[in-house]
């Protein structure tokens, strides 16, 4: 019903350009797995390699333990949902859904029955007779999913399927897709550049940058314990304090940055020594107002630049001592004041929520 997907040391090269470098992971059967990364990081190429449209230059793909080298996309137990959905415009909804059965020679009656079942599954009952272009964006999404599911794949691949939808619909579809996946029990491999999507939907996430997989793990781990500076800056918002390591005490480090001396904990698997260049990351929600002036650690003197209201969060954009932009977020529990521009306030970063990582490329602003 669902299968593991193993990528064994896959490299994909196009002439001079290497799109994917040494990708080596195993995706468990029945898992909702996401590849997360900015455009051009190679996630689409990887997806096409798994589905059979792109042969890797090196390495191989295994699905369910079987080597897929040389096997075309129509023979692999995968189904791909394209970014633009690629629904067949000249066919009706149920013809689209039943297509994979049609090419196998299944009888018309059987096909119609199956299509109706799937329409129920994706909450589009009775829409089978319509033409594709009579449906709304969200409805088309669901038809695409139904069509892919009709092929009874062991692995379902989704290429940024929600990027064309508006916010509300996107949020709704996130939950829906997750539910469908759990009901069907198939391995879902999902690619996106939206980390909110990845975090809410996936069992595990692989963060990619320029062809390399930087970290693989569950959402909480990737978020709270990023393995590299890139992952830290890409997944969720993060303030990055550049500096040099002055002290290392087991799993704690002290880094001297422009804003102040920061005490942070060392990321797992990260090795830093005194004198190394490092970045201390602190999430906006890890910054708070100074409570006990004297015993507070990681205190920064800032000046208010800007205050934003985003519904359930208040954001304060602050300017640090050397001009660094710092973002601080407070839950809207009714207690937040409104500050004028230029107000001087002191803030502190919880050392347990500050993480130090070796210096590396950050996500683009």
């Amino acid at each position: 019903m669902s299968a593991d997907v193993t990528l064994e040391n896959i490299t994909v090269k196009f002439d001079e350009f290497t799109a994917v470098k040494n990708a080596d992971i195993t995706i468990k059967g029945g898992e909702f797995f996401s590849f997360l990364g900015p455009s051009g990081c190679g996630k689409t190429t990887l997806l096409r390699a798994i589905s059979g449209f792109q042969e890797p230059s090196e390495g191989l793909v295994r699905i369910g333990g079987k080597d897929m080298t040389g096997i075309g996309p129509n023979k692999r137990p995968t189904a791909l949902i394209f970014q633009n959905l690629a629904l067949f415009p000249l066919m009706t909804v149920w013809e689209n859904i039943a297509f994979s059965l049609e090419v196998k020679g299944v009888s018309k009656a059987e096909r119609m029955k199956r299509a109706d079942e799937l329409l129920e599954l994706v909450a589009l009952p009775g829409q089978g007779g319509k033409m594709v272009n009579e449906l709304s964006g969200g409805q088309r999404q669901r038809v695409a999913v139904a069509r892919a599911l009709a092929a009874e794949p062991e692995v379902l691949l989704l290429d940024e399927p929600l990027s064309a939808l508006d916010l509300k619909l996107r949020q709704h579809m996130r939950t829906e897709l997750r539910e469908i996946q759990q009901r069907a029990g198939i391995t879902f491999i999902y690619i996106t550049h939206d980390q909110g999507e990845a975090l809410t939907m996936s069992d595990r996430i692989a963060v990619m940058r320029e062809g390399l997989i930087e970290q693989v793990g569950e959402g909480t781990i990737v978020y709270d314990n990023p393995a590299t500076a890139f992952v830290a800056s890409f997944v969720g918002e993060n303030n990055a304090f550049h500096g040099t390591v002055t002290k290392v005490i087991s799993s704690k480090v002290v880094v001297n940055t422009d804003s102040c001396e920061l005490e942070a904990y060392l990321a797992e698997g990260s090795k830093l020594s005194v004198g190394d260049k490092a970045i201390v990351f602190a999430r906006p929600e890890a910054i708070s107002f100074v409570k006990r002036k004297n015993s507070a650690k990681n205190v920064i003197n800032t000046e208010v630049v800007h205050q934003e209201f985003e519904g359930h969060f208040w954001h304060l954009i602050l300017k640090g001592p050397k001009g660094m932009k710092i973002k601080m977020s407070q839950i809207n529990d009714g207690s937040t004041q409104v500050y004028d521009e230029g107000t001087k306030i002191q803030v502190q970063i919880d050392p347990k929520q500050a993480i130090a990582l070796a210096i590396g490329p950050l996500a683009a602003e």
Partner: protein
Amino acid sequence: MSSATILRLTTSFYIILFFAYLFGPLIVMSITAFNSAAFPRLSPWDCFSTEWFGVLVNDARMMDGFKNSLIIGFAVVLVSVPIGLAGALMLSQLSNRVRPVFYTLTISTILVPGVVLGISTLIFWDRMGMMFNAGYESFFYDGIVLTVIGQSTFISAYTMLVFISRLQRFDPVLEEAALDLGATNIQTFRKILLPFLKPAIGSAAVLAFLASFENYNTTVFTIVSESTLTTVLASKVRYGINPSISALAVIIIGLTLTVAFIHEVLKRKEQAREIALKKEGQSVKEKSTVRKPFRNPVPVMVLLIFVVGLGTAWMARGYDVQQCKIEVFEEKRKHQEELSKKRRAEMQKKLNTQKSTSSSDPVESTKKAAPGTIQYGNIFAPTNLEGQVESNETEPEIQKNQYQNIFAPTNLEGQVKSENE
């Protein structure tokens, strides 16, 4: 008037003149089809008659040529549409370096003069026939087969262009989706690509048929001993034109306009449907599309003309052509009589003045008069009148044609040969 207005007026005038140039000959020709005169002309207008349509249908050579044109047309469609499709598909898959070469090669078939295509096809298959020692009955020498081959060579390029233009709007991802869902290459082709190309196949087929039907330059060489409608028409230059050709023109023009009208109506329905579908979730309203074609003036005009034409034809049924002809004939006879009366009077005058001036030579003057009377004597005989009137119409034309051809002896011989072969 400002210079801008003058410019605009001049341009409009020019455009009108241009369209007069474009339609003039056709309109004139159509009208001549209904003139009972033996040579197509507008004036003098003898009688309104539809007899030339009958002559057209009874012309065996023309009908034979027409039949061949139809056969060849259908065959060319069957050959050139698949070729054009293959060409278009190939083109879409070639690398950026090879593609221009391939494109140039295929487009060259259109640019090369038709006569060259005809000649080269003829020679090639003739030599091939010799190599295989094929008999004269075999397909190597068959005019119909050769014409189909020769025409398809360049008509395939036309169909290819139609397919290229349609393919450009095809989303290749659809093919990938089909493959991904388990379809084989052939299934993808049959179920996804071909349905998309269906309208193009239709246009290409119509285009191919029309291009084949009206082709002359290539056909005249490859047709060998057969004939098509076009070669028959061309050979009429020697035999003399009569309004049956105009009748043919009227039929073809009428057909063309009807087809154009239908095409317009269909296209508008299609467009209306597309616009309606763009609004998400709405179903198409069928009623509104019927009224739309009548907003465009052209189909209305065409329909009007058609209706008027039919009405006139209906009303004219009580009108007897023969009667009209007899009347016309009578008029001409009267006209001739008056003319001859005049001439007689003048001759009398001349004779009288001659008699008075030179009385010494009555013999000579009578001699002079005698040939004159003999000339005019012919006119007076009523039976001769008939011959005179008719031959006035037909003889000069035939004479003219003959003279034209004599000056270009090659033309004459060429036409003779084509009749005999």
